[in-house]
């Protein structure tokens, strides 16, 4: 094997060799700057550097307080990388969504996993009405009225209105409950 390629190399003109070098160079351009393999679930940073998302993710987790591009030290973050979708990639799933979950402390997007099965309202007001913390529950829900938590649906949407409506009902239920406790 080695002999043949050597023979070929010595036989071919310098021009032919250069072509081979170019091919190799092209391949390297698509290599991840961290694992040096062809980038899988590729993302590119704002500074133009290519990584596998899992590789870059691990680097960002290694130094969470100082997130810089491994190649050029430019600032870099999860939200400032662009996923790349090649032609063969049929699913076109954002690679950033399938990496191992980030460590605790990171809030996930709101989902309809309600603390009160059967009600199905958004996360905004769940648990405020736990009986143990009851007086605080009333307080927090009142307090929350004009100040929806970040997880609440954006103002103006149908979901937002629904949440407002539901929370109002809950406030009234809570007040009735207080009255019942006092007068019963």
């Amino acid at each position, binding site marked *: 094997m080695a002999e043949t390629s050597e023979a070929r190399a010595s036989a071919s003109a310098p021009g032919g060799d250069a072509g081979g070098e170019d091919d190799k160079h092209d391949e390297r351009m698509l290599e991840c700057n*961290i*694992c040096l*393999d062809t980038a899988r679930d590729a993302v590119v940073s704002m500074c133009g550097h290519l990584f596998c998302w899992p*590789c870059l993710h*691990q*680097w960002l987790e*290694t130094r969470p307080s100082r997130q*810089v591009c*491994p190649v050029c*030290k430019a600032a870099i973050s999860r939200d400032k990388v662009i996923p790349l979708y090649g032609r063969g990639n049929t699913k076109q799933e954002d690679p950033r969504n399938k990496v191992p979950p980030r460590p605790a402390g990171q809030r996930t997007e709101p989902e309809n996993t309600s603390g009160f099965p059967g009600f199905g309202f958004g996360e905004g007001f769940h648990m405020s009405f736990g009986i143990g913390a009851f007086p605080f529950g009333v307080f927090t829900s009142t307090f929350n009225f004009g100040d929806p938590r970040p997880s609440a649906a954006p103002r103006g949407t149908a979901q937002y209105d629904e949440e407002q409506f539901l929370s109002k009902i809950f406030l009234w239920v809570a007040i009735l409950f207080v009255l019942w406790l006092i007068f019963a």
Partner: protein
Amino acid sequence: MAAMSPSERRLQKELMSLMKEPPPGVTVDGDQASQNLTLWTVHMEGVPGTLYEGEKFVLQFKFTNKYPFDSPEVTFIGNNIPIHPHVYSNGHICLSILTDDWSPALSVQSVCLSIVSMLSSCKEKKRPPDNSFYVKTCNKNPKKTKWWYHDDSV
């Protein structure tokens, strides 16, 4: 071949390219490294025209399974430790890319090139001013040292 861990895969790739296209004056002990990918010995020659011309040095690289996210532990070993303001007589090197400024895009090759250029730009052969104190008190692992980086231009 048995499944390699990501760090082994990357070390294997680096070893191949370093053996194929070594930077001038740098040679890796390929047999030793391929037997144990986590411990490499690199031979380095002083660059002609610098204070270290004609000298030969040996560097040791130790890698953890977190490489390349974790920097390698790099020290001079053997009986010729370069006399340089950033190199302690026990072989420890004060070079920021080996700790604080490490990045997973760096490699054995880029570390070697940095060390070559660090030696080549030296204007006066001398030990660091705190050499004897440091050598007496330091941890065996230079990465445990809280380095206070000297001026890089020396």
